[in-house]
């Protein structure tokens, strides 16, 4: 049951690298939220029912509904729809994404450690690298936020692998999600666009040497 979900999750990461429409970014974030909700349900069925209910509800409401809704709201408010000034071509992004995938698979193979689920480890590593590729290769601040959310989702996925023994870890990951994502999206939504009128990271150049 887990494997198809994880595979779908990996495909969504590959798609993130090639899509240029922000609506697609938001939709993929919603899809990942739902996938993580299902993974958490399947993976954590052994923990205390109250904790499982809390984690599942948080994942669904926050990652599956609230974050995508905020992303769509940002798209509507700023009126930007696609990565117009991409720092690289789609082909290069795809190439980098595949390179990240190869690195993740290789490292996972080399680690060969039974102490953590290797599948989760590899996918989390790929999510981390995919997020970093998005942040580094794209110039729009919106893409950077999606990159950060991608990293966060990867971290959350890996926490579900470890969290069977330590639910505290998943709760801490949830804390990260709620505090930082809402604060960053809120700051972008209410301040950055209105005060600085900046949608490209390149235009954030007031603070420099």
């Amino acid at each position, binding site marked *: 049951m887990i494997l198809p979900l994880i595979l779908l999750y990996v495909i969504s990461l590959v798609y993130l690298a090639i899509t240029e429409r922000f609506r697609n970014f938001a939709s993929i974030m919603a899809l990942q939220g739902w996938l993580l909700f299902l993974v958490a349900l399947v993976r954590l069925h052994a923990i205390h029912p109250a904790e499982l209910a809390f984690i599942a509800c948080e994942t669904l409401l926050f990652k599956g509904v609230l974050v995508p809704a905020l992303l769509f709201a940002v798209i509507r408010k700023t009126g930007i729809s696609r990565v117009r000034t991409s720092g690289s071509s789609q082909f290069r992004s795809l190439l980098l994404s595949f390179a990240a995938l190869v690195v993740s698979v290789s*490292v996972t193979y*080399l*680690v*060969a*450690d039974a*102490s*953590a689920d290797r599948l989760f*480890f590899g996918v*989390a*590593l790929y999510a*981390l690298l995919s*997020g970093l590729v998005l*942040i580094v290769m794209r110039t729009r601040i919106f893409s*950077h*936020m999606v*990159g*950060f959310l991608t*990293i*966060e989702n*990867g*971290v959350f996925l*890996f*926490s579900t*692998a*470890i969290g*069977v*023994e*330590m639910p*505290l*870890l998943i709760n*801490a*990951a949830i*804390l*990260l999600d709620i*505090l*930082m994502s809402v*604060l*960053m999206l809120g*700051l*972008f939504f209410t*301040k*950055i666009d209105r*005060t*600085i009128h*900046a949608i490209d990271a390149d235009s*954030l150049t*007031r*603070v420099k*040497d």
Partner: protein
Amino acid sequence: MIIYLLASILVAAAAFVVRGRRTLYAVGALFYAVQLALLTVLCCGAAPQSQAGGLFVFDAPGTLFYGLLTLVSIYAFHHSEAYLKASDIGHLRTYSGLMMLLTTAIAGAYFADNLAVTWIFLEATTLCSAGLIYYRRTAPALEAAWKYLFVCSTGIAMAYLGILLLAGASHGGSLGYAAVGAALPGANPLYLKIAFLLILTGYSCKMELFPLYTVGVDANFAAPAPASALISTGLVNAGFLAILRVYKLYAATEVFPWVRGVLLAAGVLSLGVGALFLRRTNNYKRFLSYSTVENMGIAAIGLGIGGAGVWAAVFHVVCHTLVKSSLFLQMGVVRQVYDGYRINRLGDYMRINRVGAVGLMAGMVALVAFPPSPLFVSELMILSEAAATERWWLLALLLLLTCIVIYSFCSRMIRLCYQPNQDQLHPSGVDRALSWSALSLLVAALVIGFWQPALLQRIITEIATL
């Protein structure tokens, strides 16, 4: 510890709702009374070491750095009172409340005895610091706050992935430092290396170390000078202590030489970046921030060399706290006079504020590690250890970069004190009492340069023991 956290958070929350300045200062006094009460309890050894079911520990490193944090935070709060006297009460109470929350979060990170708890408190410092950086509500302040929030969040998420890897390596038991340390020696080396890289990269944004040092520089630039004093010392120390605790976890593993190599590389790169940007920047606060990057680079090199270098690194960070906070507070007075920090335009400070100028010149002597600076002791120990381990390339590089730092510092500070001033002076004039106050921190550092008390030596030895 829980009582301390509750009391501090409640007092800080009260600061957000007070109506008058006098009440705000009274709340500030109450907050620091709580801090001093905890410090007294720690110094008397009246509390058990393990706290809150093993989540916190009152150990030597936590106590030493907490003492420094309390000292710097009291100075920063006192200076803020004068520095921000023109601000409206709404902004001032937010600022004061955030300063108190930041102090509490840093203290939590110092005393955390669990990887996840350390991470949670470091995450909390991001939120408090971002509020302080955005204090002026200007476009540059917003940009700096956004960058700080974004980069720290990304870094801290990466660090969390590293912590999860360590949790996996410790076979799902506890995330307490002792339990993880006991489980790591048998773990997969590649697994441990990836975990360390992620944690170091993530926490580097707090320690202002390569690679994520830039956000710290921007934060210090945008925040009010007293807040910069706290961020550039107390918060940086939290990052250092978090990395030091992880470093000690790795001491018994087979990848420890590799870990030291990584710290050495990060340290040399930080020192290089700091030294080069000290020449390039045209803003005195950014200048001091790059000096922090450079000094944290030296501390990381100390950890990387190992042996006596670890002792020197801890001592370096302790003394840097006193020197750098003094200089940032002096810069607060400089801003009162000139209403800015532009290096190419400010001058004649020796005539305008002799006490402040002497404080800056003495701070310069301390930071470039001329005797009797305490940093001379630590840097000499690191150089000696590099020579003793026959790392001649490192020795040459350290000497070269230190020369660049000395030249940059001397030229910039002498320019501020003696070159003809090209800016209009700010009508608020000079508050020499603040210059004297900042100077007292520097005097404390210079005293440590002459004479290191046996108690301090013993505590640092305990911290540096792997």
